[in-house]
């Protein structure tokens, strides 16, 4: 049970950090300068182009070696998940921001709205609604990926299950039980996201994916 809470905690940390990073880098990529675009592209390619386990090991072991900064496995794991999730979420946010058509930006401009006002009142309210379904996928994917934290020895659901299985010599029951917990958790979460999506849905703004 304690392992499950760690799994959920890590997922939420990763998602929340990734949300902020994702939205900022998507905005930077769509509206930013050339330099910003290059930096963001590099960041995204790095995290989407290598396995999460390698990223976890890299950050946990190389940051202390490079900077002398000592951090525990939990922090290193959380930061890596945030960076990783941010890279994926950036793609979803970018798609959603670009789905708010240029003609609406022009209309906002014709009313005399500033860039900031346009973002706040026109772009984001639409983009955040459009992004819910793909964002749900990221939640599932990241939630399940937290099992990779086992390589840093973090006591999450998979790691705890492994210990119990080793102690009790009953791998079948233990891992089946662990799978069931993952399954129920993800299914319930998906239902919640679906409910939110329906709740904030606006006619004509449905996602066609």
């Amino acid at each position: 049970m304690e392992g499950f809470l760690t799994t959920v905690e890590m997922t939420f940390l990763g998602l929340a950090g990734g949300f902020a990073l994702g939205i900022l880098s998507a905005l930077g990529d769509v509206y930013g300068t050339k330099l910003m675009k290059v930096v963001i592209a590099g960041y995204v390619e790095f995290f989407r182009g290598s396995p999460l386990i390698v990223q976890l090991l890299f950050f946990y072991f190389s940051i202390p070696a490079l900077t002398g900064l000592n951090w525990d496995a939990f922090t290193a794991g959380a930061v890596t998940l945030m960076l990783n999730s941010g890279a994926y979420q950036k793609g979803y946010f970018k798609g959603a921001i670009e789905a708010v058509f240029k003609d609406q930006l022009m209309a906002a401009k014709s009313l005399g709205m500033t860039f900031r006002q346009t973002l706040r009142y026109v772009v984001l309210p639409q983009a955040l609604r459009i992004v819910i379904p793909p964002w749900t996928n990221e939640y599932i994917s990241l939630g399940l990926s937290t099992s990779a934290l086992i390589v840093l020895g973090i006591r999450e659901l998979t790691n705890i299950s492994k210990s119990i299985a080793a102690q009790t010599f009953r791998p079948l029951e233990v891992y089946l039980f662990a799978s069931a917990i993952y399954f129920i958790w993800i299914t319930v979460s998906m239902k919640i996201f679906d409910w939110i999506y329906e709740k904030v849905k606006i006619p004509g703004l449905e996602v066609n994916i």
Partner: protein
Amino acid sequence: MGEVVLACEGLKKRYGGLWVLKGIDFEIEKGQTKVIIGPSGSGKSTFLRLMGLLEPPTEGKIYFEGKDVYGSGLDLNMIRAKIGFVFQEPSLFRHLTALGNVKLGPKVVLKMKDDEAERKALEALKTVRLEEWSHHYPAQLSGGQQQRVGIARALAMDPDIILFDEPTASLDIELTWEVIDVMKDLARRGVTMLVVTHELGFAKEVADEILFMDDGRIIESGPPEELLKNPKTPRAREFLRRLIGGV
């Protein structure tokens, strides 16, 4: 002579190597309605976007109520707020109801209080005869209704002039009439309007002047009865013959 609301001098616009506008002088006075006609690609829409301050000119000056808008450190957004713009595609904010669309400008740009902005918006919706549709989202409205919401959105800002860029070009014929009727109303009420359209009936009834554009220039202008009946330039004659002939 009335007060000149919007004017330009030697206006030119280049996209890449292509000069789309090749030098335009123009002015419109308070209360006037002027209609621009001309073949596609003649620069009508570009001219309108420049006058709406949605794009900067490559050369030339634009004057709003006598002030050089790009030359004197003015807040462009504050001037844009005074120039209404109705687009060819309705371009409504899809996450807001008709009322929400019309209310946003007064609230966010003019900083009106919520109830004040709402009153303003309802009044504008009434002018375009859509008060019963105020709580519908754009996707629930017909093309003509959406376009009228677009007109109301411009009206609610109390603009000094409204620019229309072919507002009926993407509408069916019946929907065209409902939009044109609203625009005629506005013209009769004394709203200053600069309209790109090929609805010659509208031009004949309410325009003070028709401008014929071709190849990035205004090559002919005059009162409707004169320009429509006896165009002087061969280009205008040819264009009108085809437009009326329906070819």
